[in-house]
């Protein structure tokens, strides 16, 4: 009798352990979640989590466990995190938020047979047109992406571009330095008149701007740094037109930038003023959940959550996830369809927006 009890107990215990391991779908989430780079990462995370909260974090009876990690926009930290995810057999990883950090995780994931790295915002062309273990929701850096922006610059006759970039995200900055600069040249413009790292002292930057004649200042940085430097430029009487990257297109850019960021333009694929029902519904849900307005990155995080939910409902086999997403090809987005190409890259029309009365407004 005791023998049978022990056998039953052992079998039960074994199956219980087995169940707890097999019963959950684990998703690693890595982005810069703290410090001045966190605005992007936390926005993506909030949108992403909202999507899973709507389904009670359950797919086909399995619990969804999202393991959040903060790469602090630090390559060493990002490497440690991706290695740790691999070590802990977490096959599906959402991240990183910036191209520089994605560049750290990308080679690690590509060495794995059945893992997938799905970035919301990494746009560097380094990851384009490759049959790899990588998917993204952001349109890759390309000349095509800057067509409208180049037209805008041509239209308003901006010739001398002063380039300020964040050296901590060079992969992203390169896109502007390369594709964007090329487009300007193709449209009859000239090379950037100067470039400076945003992490240099503001005084030094201002002095150089004052020294070198320019009519357009391009700032590629996070939202806090971009807002701060713009505030500083404005209080130092620098009146040049300012162009920011999509990276800093968050609400706290406008909140932190105040009236100083009025008139700032940005090239983007998302419109905060969209009247798309799905987008409005998302905004409403986000506000109820978090008590604040969502940024476009939160919207993209939410979209990615919905794509994963739809695909994981078909099967939670991560090894076939990319193929299934590419095969499905078209997903409902919050602002129109999201269409994946055969490499898992997406395309979206880009347009120019300008800050007017503390809002990003589409430039017609």
């Amino acid at each position: 009798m005791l023998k049978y009890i022990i056998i039953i107990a052992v079998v039960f215990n074994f199956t219980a352990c087995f169940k707890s391991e097999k019963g959950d779908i684990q998703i690693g989430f890595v982005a810069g979640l703290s410090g001045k780079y966190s605005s992007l990462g936390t926005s993506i995370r909030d949108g992403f989590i909202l999507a899973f909260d709507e389904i009670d974090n359950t797919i086909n009876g399995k619990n969804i466990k999202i393991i959040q990690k903060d790469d602090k926009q630090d390559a060493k930290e990002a490497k440690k995190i991706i290695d740790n995810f691999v070590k802990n057999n977490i096959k599906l990883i959402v991240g990183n938020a910036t191209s520089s950090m994605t560049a750290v995780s990308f080679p690690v994931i590509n060495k794995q047979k059945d893992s997938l790295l799905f970035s919301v915002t990494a746009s560097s062309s380094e990851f384009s047109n490759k049959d790899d273990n990588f998917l993204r929701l952001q349109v890759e850096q390309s000349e095509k992406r800057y067509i409208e922006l180049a037209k805008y610059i041509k239209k308003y006759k901006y010739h001398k571009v002063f380039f300020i970039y964040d050296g901590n995200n060079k992969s992203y900055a390169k896109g502007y330095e390369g594709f964007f600069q090329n487009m300007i040249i193709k449209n009859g413009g000239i090379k950037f008149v100067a470039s400076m790292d945003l992490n240099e002292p503001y005084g030094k930057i201002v002095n150089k701007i004052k020294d070198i004649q320019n009519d357009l200042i391009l700032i590629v940085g996070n939202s806090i740094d971009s807002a701060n430097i713009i505030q500083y430029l404005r209080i130092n009487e620098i009146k040049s037109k300012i162009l920011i990257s999509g990276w800093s297109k968050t609400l706290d850019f406008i909140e932190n930038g105040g009236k100083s960021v009025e008139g700032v333009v940005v090239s983007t694929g998302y419109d905060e003023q969209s009247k798309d029902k799905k987008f409005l519904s998302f905004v409403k849900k986000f506000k109820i959940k978090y008590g604040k307005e969502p940024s476009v990155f939160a919207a993209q995080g939410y979209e990615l959550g919905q794509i994963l939910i739809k695909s994981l409902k078909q099967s939670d086999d991560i090894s076939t996830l990319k193929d299934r997403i590419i095969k499905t090809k078209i997903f409902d987005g919050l602002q129109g369809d999201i269409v994946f190409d055969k490499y898992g890259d997406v395309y979206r029309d880009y347009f120019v927006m300008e800050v007017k009365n503390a809002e990003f407004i589409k430039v017609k």
Partner: protein
Amino acid sequence: MIRIKSLKSKILIYLILFATIPMLISSIMILNEMYKTKKESIFIRHYQILKQVEEESDNIVSHIEYLAVYVKDKYLIKKTNLLKGLIRVQKNISAILILNKHGKLINFSTKNKSMVYKGYDYSNRKYFKEISSGKETYWSEVYLSPISSLPSISYSIRIDEEHIAVLVINLGLLNDFVKKFKSASKDTLVRITDKHGVYLAYPDKPEFISQQKLILNSDIYTKYISKNYTNKQIIYNSNRFEKYIGVYGTSKKLKWNIIVYESYDYLFKTFNTLVWFLVMFIIILILISIYFSIRFSKSVLMPLEKVSINMDNFTHNKEVTDIKDSNYDELNKLVTNFELMRERIKHREDEIRLEIEKNKEKDIQLFEQSKMAAMGEMIGNIAHQWRQPLSVISTSATAMLMQKEYGILSDEKFENSCESINNQAQYLSKTIDDFKNFIKGDRNLEEVSIKTCIDSFISLITPSATGNNIKMILNIDKNILWKVYPNELIQCFINIFNNSKDAYAKDCDNKLFFIEVHENGNTLDLTFKDNAGGIPKDVINKIFEPYFTTKHKSKGTGLGLHMTYNIITEGMKGNISVINEEYIYEDKKYKGASFIISIPKNI
């Protein structure tokens, strides 16, 4: 259908069940009570901490609100000195910003160096918009401060129409405050989130605050916080499958979620060890109980089983073994009494056997007696009956002699007389044969014609019937062949007839005796019915008893009907019963006794 079970296994199971179940139930109840008490004590401790933290949180909020009022009152007088002084002494304030009515930063003081400069425009910040819209004060949600690049909350107050003060709160202070509450495992006990679930204090995981991490995607949120399950004990799992126990509540002022928690496993480690030991102890006790139950059942049931086997053997005439003495007095008594009973039964059996043999002999004697009595009566009847044929023979012979003497004996007369003499002699001869057959006494089961039996019976009793003016009315199925003891059956008929004959009143001038014989499937039904008025009710149930008679001693022995009963029921496995019956015959009503006999086909 009742399932026959083994008493031994049943008793053993009951013994084990009674030995273990109460112990198990009481153990479970004790453990449950212990668990509940432990949980209760944990809850009380957690609840006290919760209330303390709730109060302290509200105090911190009140203190900041007080400081803001102080800034409002003193700023215009002391200006920068006030800001610097407050930043220096107030640990919970990381920055104080003074905005003008356009939202421009006109003065500020921060704890650490920052990338903020006077002239920065904060008119788009929610705190400025809220105050500008007419509010006197405003508590912000958690936001990423551009001053410190850290998640912060701020409290804004209108100083006057031109100035707004913004006090940026150092969330680290809140973290430091809750650090004081340590669990037994040296982990902190408390964490705080704002009403949207953003962490404000979490000393064990400070990165949760810097990452503005939310509690939303957690077990505790989905199970309890989202359902507003406040001030009650909660048990939940962390994302790493660690189990926690605690209580959660909300602060009064800013509706912060305050969670007091501890590792469930750590708290219940000692308890679990205790439970483990207790469970082991109970298992050992149960095993001991089972062992003693088996032993006890063996020591009690073995003698019982042996008694049972012996009884079975004794019943089936098999060999009976000796049973050893048991340790129990009652069982020894049972065994002794069984042995005594066995001896007595054996003795009684011998006595009964002897008695049966005696009875058999007695029965034979009785039968013989009865038969002799019947024979005597029959001989009397025969003698009476023979008188007439003998008289006929004698008359015929005498007539022939006289006719010859006178020479008038014709051949025809001679032949007629001889024929008459011969007929009478034949009749006498048949009577002798029947009588001879009857008294021969052969007892053989043979298939005979029941009609023949009845005829023999009629032949034997005809003299008596004639002498008593009894009219025989027969209703007999012909050609019935049945296996019977013919002589004994005839004896039965004679006894029944004699009983009826003696019952008729002397002055009765219409004596009837009905005989009906029918085959009814597998039984032969015979009915003998008279019209002698029936048997009195008080004796009708006794008439088959031996030596029971209502007749004068000269007439009856009291054995006739008893013998009849035995022959029918035991000899031929049949039934005999008697009833009083009223009936109509030839439009006349009669009453009499009716003997009903049924004899089965296969005796």
